[in-house]
């Protein structure tokens, strides 16, 4: 399992707009790069990222080969209620990594 860095404010006021930052450890191999033997390294990228807030999707993205290794995504959402943010990354091998973070809303 790859490592991920997730930055969610631990506490927020109700209605406040909070910034969420995520980074997943991933090579994002484009499929266009030749190895020492001249053959191309097979493509291996994160295709899809979804963030849900108490089950509701608040942000999602499709990723493409031009995106750097260890893709960093930052976005904002409105803090509505205390709950769990779920982050999931799906790669070319259709493996999904899921991570969660809790936010307390006062």
């Amino acid at each position: 399992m790859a490592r991920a860095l997730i930055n969610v404010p631990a506490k927020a006021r109700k209605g406040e707009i909070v910034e969420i930052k995520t980074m997943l450890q991933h090579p994002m191999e484009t499929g266009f790069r030749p190895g020492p033997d001249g053959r191309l390294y097979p493509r291996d990228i994160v295709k899809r990222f979804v963030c849900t807030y108490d089950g509701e999707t608040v942000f999602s993205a499709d990723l493409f080969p031009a995106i750097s290794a260890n893709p960093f995504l930052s976005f904002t959402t409105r803090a509505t209620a205390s709950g769990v943010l779920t982050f999931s990354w799906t790669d070319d091998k259709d493996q999904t990594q899921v991570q969660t973070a809790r936010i307390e809303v006062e």
Partner: protein
Amino acid sequence: MTRARPMHALSALARAALLCAPLLCASGAAAQIAPQARKSGAAFMSPQTQAMQADDSSNPGMLAALEGESLWGQKAGAANLACADCHQNAETSMKGAAARHPRFDEGAGKPVDLQGQVNSCRQTRQQAQPFPYESRELLALVAYVGLQSRGLPVAPPDDPRLAPFVENGRALFHRRIGQLNFACAQCHDENWGRRLGSALIPQGHANAYPIYRLEWQDMGSLQRRLRNCMNGVRAEPYSLGSLEFIELELYLAERAKGMPVETPGVRP
């Protein structure tokens, strides 16, 4: 007419000497960067890249440090020992360790850098296979140990046994190499702040290694970076872990003495 020729040749020589004089002075004056004029490589980066390094949730080097943290506690080798079994908590035991490397290794009778030290622990204490240079595991452990020195000044040990190696490192730094016939000092002492192609030439201080280099899309050690420069001047690079590299690392540590450690750094 025939007698005039030597005169003419002499005056040409004198003119050439006059032209050369200011050039020699300029290179003499810029030969070494004054301690207060030193700037970290981070100062030459775009504000975006600086911000990337400054924020731990956007610095990709922190992913390597996280991996190193888990390796620190992982048992390995025939001795079934983890780094943590001898050194306990890295946050206290490894504080400043990276800033003091390379250091003199009594057993080997020569200097050893942090990567060499990790591998020597692995072989003698854990009785495990050493990690290959530039392997993920080695870079991760070195990044994690390096992180414990972040903010502390680079502090090369004041050890007389190191002196000849530092001197060799200094000589290597000033030796012209490769088909382009360049020495490290010509770019990093004499022409820093100017451009080489589109890239700004930094002063070449090694205070942020291992780094996450955007061009590599990956972590890399100082030795990988030095090999890059050597390839750039079309010289044959020294092999990873060679004494020449350790000597260069020693001289660079001496050169960056007192500058704060930035590990894990981000560089363009």
